[in-house]
């Protein structure tokens, strides 16, 4: 049969952000895949060197719209470690609360995108409708649905009043109720299982070889979860359960993420129930003492590493962010060959690619 090259080019209904996937297809079987990224590369690391630390927080927030709070948390923590600042517990708790809320909203968003990729538009509509409530909570707390602007170096800018906390708890309970439809979907819905079970399998060796992180790795048996391995912010006094499965197919990833949403719900409730009292921020100096610092946090898609190097001035000498989507993209090249063309959509959407993160 003839071999044709199917481009899932920069513009394609399957992918929300530009990525160039070239598939060598024979009949309905994928033989080889080539992935090109960089369409969303805005040279942010270069830009950050020309902005002061405080301005950097606004730029870092625009690296990725879905996990903006994760990026600012990592960046601020890195500079707080560099400048040896002591962040007050209430700021840590609010920062962690928003991290977990963002994880819920990111996973629900992903569930909708995967459902739309395999043709299940109803679940896309339901998942994104439930997600609106999480966005409402975040908007009530920080004023912004997507770019919250809550983190500043040394703490947090917005406070969570008792009334907001009560509202949030009510919405989270309602969300826990609505999660039952997605748990049923991932456990028992035959048409969903038929399109995701045993597809795009990733072995444990691949996970170790490519250094894959986050829910994609935890669906293949890896146990790396920075919230447990190196607790930061308020995770030191929270017990973070984690879901680890072994099958490693798209269904296992869906199950891991749905379980993580439920764990995040309980974490949010714990945080909201006992928000420690105290100040919101500490004074942060304009000039950060010379040196370098590395921090890792658990973004919705996995381990997010930030490296900040300062030369004593008020602008960072070098900022490097390694986002969790990069290893998943590398592994995609091994997952795609051998697939049926119909499954490419499920695997690419199942890997929860965030190109804005990958390209920076």
């Amino acid at each position, binding site marked *: 049969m003839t071999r044709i090259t199917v481009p899932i*080019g*920069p*513009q394609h*209904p399957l992918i*929300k*952000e*530009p990525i160039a996937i070239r598939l060598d297809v024979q009949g309905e079987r994928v033989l080889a895949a080539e992935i090109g990224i*960089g*369409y*969303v*590369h*805005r*040279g*942010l690391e*270069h*830009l950050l060197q*020309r902005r002061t630390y405080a301005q950097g927080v*606004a*730029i870092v927030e*625009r*690296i*990725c*719209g*879905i996990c*903006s709070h994760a990026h600012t948390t990592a960046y601020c923590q890195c500079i707080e470690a560099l400048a040896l600042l002591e962040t007050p517990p209430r700021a840590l708790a609010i920062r962690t609360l928003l991290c977990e809320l963002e994880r819920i909203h990111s996973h629900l*968003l992903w569930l*909708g995108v995967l459902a739309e990729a395999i043709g299940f538009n109803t679940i*896309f*509509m339901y998942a*994104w*409708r439930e997600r*609106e409530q999480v966005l409402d909570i975040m908007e009530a707390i920080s004023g912004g*649905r*997507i*770019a919250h602007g809550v983190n500043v170096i040394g703490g947090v800018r917005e406070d969570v009043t008792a009334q907001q906390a009560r509202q949030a708890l009510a919405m989270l309970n309602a969300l826990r109720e609505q999660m039952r439809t997605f748990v049923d979907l991932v456990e028992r819905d035959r048409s969903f299982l038929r399109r995701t079970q045993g597809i795009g399998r990733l072995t444990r060796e691949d996970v170790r070889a490519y250094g894959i992180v986050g829910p994609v790795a935890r669906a293949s048996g890896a146990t790396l979860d920075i919230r447990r391995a190196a607790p930061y912010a308020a995770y030191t006094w929270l017990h973070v359960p984690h879901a680890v499965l072994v099958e490693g197919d798209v269904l296992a990833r869906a199950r891991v993420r749905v379980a993580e949403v439920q764990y995040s719900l309980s974490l949010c409730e714990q945080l909201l129930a006992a928000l420690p009292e105290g100040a919101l921020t500490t004074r942060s100096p304009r000039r950060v003492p010379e040196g370098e610092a590395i921090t890792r946090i658990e973004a919705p898609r996995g381990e997010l590493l930030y490296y900040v190097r300062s030369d004593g001035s008020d602008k960072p000498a070098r900022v490097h962010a390694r986002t969790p989507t990069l290893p998943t993209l590398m592994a995609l090249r091994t997952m795609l060959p051998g697939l049926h063309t119909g499954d490419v959509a499920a695997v690419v959407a199942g890997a929860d690619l*965030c*190109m*804005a993160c990958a390209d920076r």
Partner: protein
Amino acid sequence: MIERLLRWGRIKSPWILHYNSGGCNGCDIELLDVLTPRYDAERLGILKEAAPRHADILVCTGPVTLKSRDPLLRIYEQMPEPRWVVALGACACTSGIFTGSYHVLGGVDRLLPVSLYVPGCPCRPEAIIRSLANLLEKI
């Protein structure tokens, strides 16, 4: 008479095509939010189309980076007349916060004739629907 009928058709059935030429996907997810139950753009007849040939409005998010300049132009050329371009979000209008980066060309209006600028970083779903409605009145 035919002209009025065509104009009515174009106003009542604007099919959009979305392309992210370098943005942080904040505006993209807000644009997709517009199709979901709470905002539901289908009541205005707005559908998100798969192929440039079927679309009337090209909704661009994000500043134009060097690497996504050619794909953007190619998509615009594939779209049949009459077509409009909407720049969604501050960085699509004027390359916003990413101004001065070596890999960013600038706003979308550097390349394409933009008929509507939607401010906001990211812009809210209500703002997107309101501005699309404004564009439809201008047709």
